[in-house]
């Protein structure tokens, strides 16, 4: 690619070129440098609980088959037959001992092994080494609190290292009660926008709530916690591009549904206990694991992947989740709050989508495209907070998370490999230590 990506993100002035939201060459480069490299969310373990259970999804634009084998191990493979590249499995989910390709009938066991090749003996003369032609597995697969992630890059750091301090913040959403969470519903739809707009929005845009969503707040679809001037909180970046919007530990961001609020009240102490002292400092309510896995706890409870489909097209794959230990009535209310708040018909979500679309389409103009976007809110007013294990804004609303996101994006887009990134991660660690030191002083 001729484009010099390093010029597109001006961290010093918190300006980002609009070219990265529209130009096809940059999008293609993102596929290689971001999506073929980072740990990407696949699905939740509750979606493939039993041997043989499978779930099909995407990593970037690559189709992926997640399947639990006969021995209970979850694997993920390119959902592509090794012979002539046909899509192997065409169902959203199901249960299978094996998958047979519709074209020539090659059969793969649910652990990826190529078990059946018609006429292997008489037409292949037994010269095809089946061991070499099993399904192509992802390079690494791991899970955290039931969230299954994978990466195509053998050189990527382990998942725990990739998540770093983000791990605890995920626990707040996905492991606050024994048993973790389960998936209640699935929503998939197409948005005509660049994937980074929703990713940055969920990661740090508490600012838009007071205006974009004012109609939903005033008509009681949400408690609108971040729009409440009395609320506390901070924009929190635990590193590696991961982001969180947090409110104060005593702010209430739950959906305005009596059954849910009663439930939250009832489990409050148990949860605080389980999450440890940090839960007394901060309450994360929305966030993004870099690059495109976002999750939400206030108003509605969903996690989602912003599947990239071109510079100006994104598929949302969104799942509603709830504590497994919650009573059935609470689960139903959580499902309904999501359908009504954050889904294609969501009274919150629909207005977001309109904005993200227009942020994207206006980039088509060659003059508009030269206009840098402004990410300056709260510059110089964030610091590393050892208690939070993260950089955090002084104010409860800021764009410091956005700045972390695009800095990380630029690092990945310019680095030739994870090894090249390592020094910058080391630097980050040093900076972190230095800041931590300062914070302790």
């Amino acid at each position, binding site marked *: 690619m001729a484009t010099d990506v390093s010029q597109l993100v001006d961290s010093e002035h918190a300006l980002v070129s609009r070219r990265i939201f529209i130009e096809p060459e940059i999008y293609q480069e993102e596929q290689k440098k971001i999506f073929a490299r980072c740990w990407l969310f696949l699905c939740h373990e509750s979606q493939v609980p039993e041997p*043989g259970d499978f779930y099909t999804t995407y990593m970037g634009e690559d189709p992926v088959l997640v399947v639990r084998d006969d021995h209970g191990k979850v694997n993920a493979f390119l959902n592509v037959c090794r012979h002539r590249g046909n899509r192997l499995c065409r*169902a*959203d*989910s199901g249960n299978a001992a094996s998958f*047979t390709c519709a074209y020539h009938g090659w059969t793969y066991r649910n652990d990826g092994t190529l078990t059946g090749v018609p006429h292997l003996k008489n037409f292949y003369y037994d010269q095809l080494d089946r061991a070499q032609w099993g399904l192509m597995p992802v390079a690494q697969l791991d899970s955290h609190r039931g969230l299954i992630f994978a990466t195509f890059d053998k050189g990527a750091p382990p998942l725990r290292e990739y998540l770093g301090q983000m791990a605890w913040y995920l626990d707040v959403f996905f492991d606050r009660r024994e048993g973790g969470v389960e998936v209640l519903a699935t929503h998939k739809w*197409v948005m*005509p926008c660049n994937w980074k707009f929703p990713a940055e929005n969920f990661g740090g845009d508490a600012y838009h709530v007071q205006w974009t969503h004012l109609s939903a707040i005033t008509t009681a679809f949400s408690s609108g916690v971040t729009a409440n001037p009395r609320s506390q909180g901070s924009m929190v970046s635990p590193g590696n591009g991961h982001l969180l919007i947090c409110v104060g530990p005593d702010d209430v961001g739950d959906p305005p549904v009596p059954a849910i609020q009663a439930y939250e009240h009832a489990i409050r102490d148990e949860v605080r206990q389980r999450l440890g002292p940090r839960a007394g400092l901060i309450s994360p309510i929305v966030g993004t694991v870099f690059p495109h896995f976002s999750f939400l706890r206030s108003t509605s409870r969903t996690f989602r992947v912003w599947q990239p489909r071109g510079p100006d097209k994104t598929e949302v794959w969104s799942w509603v989740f709830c504590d497994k230990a919650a009573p059935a009535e609470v689960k139903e209310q959580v499902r309904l709050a999501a359908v009504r708040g954050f889904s*294609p018909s969501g009274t919150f979500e629909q207005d977001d*989508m309109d904005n993200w*679309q227009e942020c994207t389409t206006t980039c088509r103009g060659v003059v508009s495209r030269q206009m840098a976007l402004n990410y300056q809110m709260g510059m110089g007013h964030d610091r590393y907070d050892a208690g939070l294990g993260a950089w955090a804004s002084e104010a409860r609303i800021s764009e410091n998370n956005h700045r972390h996101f695009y800095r990380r994006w630029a690092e990945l887009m310019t680095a030739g490999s994870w090894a090249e990134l390592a020094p910058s991660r080391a630097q980050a660690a040093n900076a972190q230590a230095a800041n931590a030191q300062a914070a302790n002083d």
Partner: protein
Amino acid sequence: MTEAAIREIEQFLYREARLLDERRFREWLDLLSDDLRYTMVTRANRYPPSSKAIAVLDPARLPDDETAEEDALAVLDETKPTLAGRVARLETGMAWAEDPPSRTRHFIANIELSPGSSAAEVAVRCNFIVYKSRSETEQDFYVGARRDLLRRVDGTWKIARRKLVLDQNVLLAKNISIFF
């Protein structure tokens, strides 16, 4: 059902559709019964039991049928109060996805009637196409089937249950900011 019944219901449904297209949402709400449940589901891609594309490992894991998982695929699951809330939201002047408003056109087709569970009720099936145009060049077609339960209350029909099946897996429209 008699001719006259079909015609009466048909005209009721056409008028209802027109209220929506004319954005007379408050009048539309008046057509809903207080105990309404109003849902729209999308559709899953699943191998049927007969499929040879896979060898099933654990037959107990097969869903009974697509409708068994309806809640998990609902993109609308409303009551009269939540629909009224949606209308109120549109009236705030800050419902950006509908400001300026979209243009809709509802097509109600293949109407079939069957008796309801009481004399005052009638079950109505139809197919729908809802065309939505917005802004300068956006357009979407929402296509599917609908099952209504209508109830005669004080001499007028009220909609007591509406279940919409949208014939898509990944919804191709960017949102559902309209009513069906």
